[in-house]
């Protein structure tokens, strides 16, 4: 069972996405801000991180940079989630070290496809 870390401050979005992914057989770790996300990633070593970009405290871009700078975590793929459907946000996310990019509201099919690619599995 693949372990997924979901970093998302909005409770509804976090709950929603977590439930849908759990239903598809993923093990979910939840974090509500960047700092907790980074800590959880370091201790739990998830297989993939779904990272919201607009977070309180340490934001998603900063958290991604920290994780990608840490040799212990830099191998974990990160998919950036952002409400800004703007090319510049995607560029910014990729520049921060994120491996993929998904626009909110999340299109589950598209997200699962991307997750599958990064995890090296076919989507559930």
């Amino acid at each position: 069972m693949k372990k997924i870390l979901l970093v998302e401050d909005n409770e509804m979005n976090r709950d929603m996405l977590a439930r849908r992914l759990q239903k598809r057989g993923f093990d979910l770790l939840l974090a509500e801000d960047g700092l907790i996300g980074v800590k959880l990633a370091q201790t739990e070593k998830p297989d993939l991180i779904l990272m919201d970009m607009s977070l309180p405290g340490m934001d998603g871009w900063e958290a991604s940079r920290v994780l990608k700078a840490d040799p212990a975590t830099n191998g974990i793929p990160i998919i950036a989630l952002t409400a800004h459907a703007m090319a510049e946000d995607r560029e910014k996310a990729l520049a921060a070290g994120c491996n993929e990019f998904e626009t909110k509201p999340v299109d589950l099919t598209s997200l699962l496809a991307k997750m599958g690619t990064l995890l090296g599995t076919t989507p559930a």
Partner: protein
Amino acid sequence: MFDRMPLRWRLTLLITSICAVTLIAAFSGYLAVELIKIRQSVGERMESTQRLLVDNATAVLVRDPEAANFPLSSLSSDQTIVAAAIYGGDDRLLTKYIRPGVNEFIPKPRAITLNFSTDQVIIFRPLRHNGQQIGTLYLKAEFGGLERERLLEPLRGMAILFLLSMLFAVLASRFMQRGISDPISKLAAAARRVAVDGDYNVRVDSKAGGETGVLVDAFNSMLTTIQQRDAELVVAKTNAESARERLAEINSTLEEVNRTLEHKVQDRTAELEKMMLTAKDANQAKSSFLAKMSHELRTPMNAIIGYSEILLEDATDTGNQSAADDLNKILGAARHLLGLINDVLDLSKIEAGRMDLFLETFDVGTIVRESITTVAPLVEKKQNRLVLDCPAQVGMMHADTTKLRQVLLNLLSNASKFTSHGLITLSVARGMVGPGECIIIKVTDTGIGMTAEQMSRLFQTFSQADASTTAKFGGTGLGLAISRQFARLMGGDVTATSESGKGSVFTVWIPVQVAPVRATAVPFEIAPMRTTAPFPSTAPIPTAPKVVAKPATTATNHAGARVLIIDDDQNVHTTLNQLLSKEGYVVAGTATSKEARIKAREFRPDVIILDTLVPEVEGWNLLAQFKADPELSSIPVILLTMVDDVKTAGVALGAADYLIKPLDGAKLLPILDKLCAERKETSILVVEDDPPTRLMVCRLVEREGWLAVPAENGRRALDLLKTFTPSVVLLDLLMPEVDGFSVLREMRGNPAWKDIPVVVLTSLDLTGEVRRLLQQQAERVLQKGRYTREELLKEVRDAVREFAGRGLRGSRPPMEVLHPGPVPPIKVSPSA
């Protein structure tokens, strides 16, 4: 000395001295002659005396050589004889005579016979007898006394004569010289007065003739000339002085004005600077607001869509079909709402000039195929077939992928929406548009297509071909407008051609190499509110004011209103003509539909009465044509019909009202009156100093069926406002004499005018502060060059409605202030 004498004296002296010299010469001549005469007579006397003495003495001596007692004493009677002596033959003095009282001596006899000096004669004469000298006679005479005596006598007379002559000469010269010297003296005196006192009033009064007269006359005329010159000089001086004073006055006024102006400019500049800062802040706030809104709106949508999907999955899993159906509806609505939100945000961004381009180089084919994949479900849903015509070598382009994709998706989904069981063709090619190489994408469908009228509103926001289409086909009505703006941002455009019932072709072209331009605000064309469709009872936008007490006389509403009657029945024309003319309408008519449109354009009626059964073209078609003609669409049309089932069709086609034949005047008149009243009360005051702009705006307004009252500046506008109440004032800001700001101030300060809506049209780049200030006083502010005609008309319509909504009643200006005739019609090219 002589030189300094007065001329009078000199002349006198001259004449007198000439006179004296002449007299002296004459007298001297006379005296000389007299003297010679005296001398001759003395000589003669002496000769005779001597001869007598010689004879007597000779005789005595002959007788007595010693005759000493010769009677020489007889000589005493002769005054001239001073001395006499007789010498004997031996020169012995025999006798002598010396006049008593005279000291004389007797000289020795000499051989000299006669010695005649100036005043004395001495004679020695030998006394001979028989050739032998017997003695000598000596005689000495003096004439001095005699001469004096004889000369003195005439001299006295001469002296008196001389004096008298001189006196006469003096008097005569004094009298005679006056003719010469007087005028000259007067001239001199006058000249002195002129020279010393500078008195040019002096004139020399003289009747002298000759050269003097000429001189005097010349002098006088010279003085007159000088005086005239002086007077002229004085006048000129005075003029120059007053001119200088006026100049100084004007100068000071100018300086004052300048100062005031400078102050004003300074104040305005400061104000503007402040406002600019405020506007900058406001702009900043606006863009951050937009960014925030996009996040804030999308987040809850995210949750709604997400949970709906979860529930839908659950419902599907548990086989709860009815819940699944409902959830599908929620999902559909939510996705639509999200689409709307995205579109509105895009629009706001474009409008705010916040839409930026993110340029990258990409393969055109990839984007095209991706879009097809995305739109595939929609295409299939309507059982359409999609054909892609994209050559492999179409290659790469440098543009904004997101925006290009959005444009493609919009065009493809539109084609799918409005086509069923048809063919959609997407062709992509490289080509040249203007000077640059472009990617040209064509989306062709075989769907319902559009009419020319629908086409004209195609790219306007919130406009679909038909109000009903939104309900039928979905969509926000924003897609095409956004697509066109995106294409234009990238330096390209979207165009369309269509034929109703046959399908449409949308063409996008975008430069292969898009230039990275800073986005600026792009004006949108806002679809006009359709005022034509429903009957008045259901009209959503009443142009009539909320009923305020109607004037007692209905005639005032329609006096001079124009009615065009289109009917093939001559009886209808006759009846209506009589009826309406009596009511004060101006009536024109035509029997054929062919003529109807031309007539309507020429006559510019306030109301059209249209028979639905005119030959050639059906009345309905004619009505549709009127409503599709921008010049005529605003004219209310009353339908005349034989049957009572026109209401629905009338609503759809935009008739204002309808009447069933045979005509009932009692029904027609109130309807006409009401329609005319509405039009009459709506007049728009167009205040604009630039003639072409004024004319353009006036025409635009006239085409809406309102009366445009032009005013070339603020002063004229304020004057006009005193004569009538416009429903709306369209106001330019920068104008000569009285500017727009002042007009606004005046209007807002006047209770009669303060409720008249004002739409400001300005080319000024308004800062936030100015805009805010203006918006407090004016209903709307439109920037010239930024608004479209439709936008302007929409604002004016809104303002007209607002005016009515305030319970106000407009009026038209009296005929005499409307000097120009109706605005000439504009040629409108067919909309296609």
